[in-house]
């Protein structure tokens, strides 16, 4: 059951990142895509980036290392990193 749930979670990483970004940057989700980044989203400045980090940590129940925070350069890269982290967590959970 928990494995099924995490597979579902994994599949949804991108859509959950999109939803979270839409809330934090206060833009409609339709205005976001995988390539959206601080260069294309006006409200994605360095302080909002911190809020985005906090929001993702809360949404996915994970913590980013300082190195990882620097890799969150676009929606797509963020989703890829999260997929990776969730996969790691599943294997350390041992199920």
């Amino acid at each position: 059951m928990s494995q099924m749930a995490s597979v579902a979670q994994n599949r949804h990483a991108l859509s959950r990142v999109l939803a979270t970004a839409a809330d934090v940057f206060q833009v409609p989700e339709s205005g976001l895509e995988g390539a959206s980044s601080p260069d294309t989203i006006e409200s994605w400045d360095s302080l909002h980036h911190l809020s985005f980090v906090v929001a993702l940590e809360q949404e996915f129940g994970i913590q980013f290392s300082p190195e990882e925070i620097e890799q969150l350069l676009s929606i797509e890269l963020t989703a890829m990193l999260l997929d990776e982290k969730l996969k790691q967590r599943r294997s350390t959970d041992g199920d």
Partner: protein
Amino acid sequence: MSVLQKTDRRVEIEQLLDNGQWAAAHVRLGDLWHGERKAATAGYILARYEQLRDRLSLTKCRISFLRSTVVEPLMPFLQTAALVSGIDPIIQVGPFNGYAQEILDPCSSLYSFSPEIVILAIQTRDLVPDIWEAYADLSPREVNRSVSRLREMFSQLISTLREHSDACMVIHTLEKPVASQGVFDLQGTEGQLATIDHLNLELKQICRQYRGVFVLDYDALIAQHGRTRWHDEAKWLTMRMPFATDSFMPLVSEWMKFIHPLAGVTCKVLAVDLDNTLWGGVLSEDGQDSIQIGLEYPGAHYRSLQRAILDLYQRGILLAVCSKNNPDEAMATLQNHPGMLLRPKHFAAFRINWQDKAQNLREIASELNVGTDAIAFLDDSPIERERVRLEMPEVKVIPVSGRAQDFAKALRDCPFFERVTLSMEDRKLTTLYHEQHQRSDLARSSGSLEEFLRSLDQEVAITPVTPETLRRVAQLTQKTNQYNVTTRRYTEQQIEDVTKWQDWNVYAVQVKDRFGDNGIVGAIIVRLDADICEIDTFLLSCRVIGRTIETAMLGFLTETSRAAGAALLQGWFFPTKKNSPVRDLYSTHRFKPVANAHGGTLWSLNLAEADISCPEWIRLHVTNGFCRAEQARA
């Protein structure tokens, strides 16, 4: 599941906004926030308030943060928490680590922002890095030097801010580190932790010397939440933000406990249900002998709730019962049950019947002379809570889960009951209301109004404000909504400043009658300008409206302004949603309208032609008259 629920809630909110149901949308946004206090949710809610904030009557509050760390990611949390509680915060975050410059420079952005609240959130490691980081290296003399340097810095910062601003200040205490010498640190009087305790005591002493300067026990907050969980060392080192994500809400909630009373967004009344709230079980079914209340489980949960309610009573919150029950049986239980802490004498109003609770709450508000927005409601039944929330969105319904053991905490956490100062009047508020009951009984039994007023045997004392009465007078300007001609709000600091200005006079009005001392229930602020005496503030607590005290006050003003050489007594009336009781004050006392501006009317009384005398059923005591500039200098 949570994703689905989240979507449902948001769909409902969007519909309410589309339909223009602003108050209901406000309620539902509050529900959404209480369900998931997360950064993403805060972003969503804040975007919705862009549309809502001007359509609701929210209390604006300007808050400035002086800080030594990155606090920006906490701000959406604070804004959301404030908005859903009826406060529209305008927040300024001062330059990073620039707190001292901001306070010391009179032209700083801090002062041009003119905040009402300044929150000083500086970490120990930034204030006294040697004591935080390298205590083991320090000699006792070096420790003393650091301690006195910090003491001087705090004194200077606070007194300078006081000079340039009348904002209230909230200052974080110093947080304790992990002792560098381990358990040995505590085995003497000069350890690292003892030094920080000492610094915090000194800080509290300095704050007490000033009006409107308050201490937030930051170290206790961290301890309560869990010291090891509070920080995120990686974020501190890379981004200068020390707080772990899970610490955001505890800190924001603590700030809200100060913001609510300082912004004046508080509840004066707590209305409580009885069955499964004050006690376990249903009285009309189980009977008095079987309900659960006392020292043993499960009655002990209800008893600890009663203790929390009693603490609010001691803080001056009025209590009311709002319960579906048989009145005789419920009153007998309140009176006689051996396990109860709360007794009928603690309550100022009772609505024990089978009526709709929203209606009962309206009646309680009118009996206690408060707006329904000043009422908080505690009920275990989700149906009753929902009914009241939708019917009366202005009532603060305490969010509780179904579990009795959580009720006391929910009440103690509720920021609407917080007070930063307490006057004598607050502490004996319920006694005052009981006397009020006796007065209304007398009013019903007396024939004519005049007979009633005579029988009250009233004494009115009008006295220039003193350091002892300052707090109460400021509080009256902040809390009085109904009998208040200009609704100008003043802080203690502002009132104190006004008393120092030439030609301005501030008076406290105290009323006694045969049932007791009502305390200070009125205030007057006037300014003499050549031959015009202008009334800046004229207000009476609703407890004493309709007893001709206003005539005694105006009588005092005509006499003293004439004696001071004035030819005209003038005052503005600015109508608000709530001050219709005072609308006719000036016209019934034969003032003439002479100007209109800013939505108000200026009323004037020619002192050579007209006079107002104190009603003969009031004994008026006047300590002294006006203080003119020449006299003040002489």
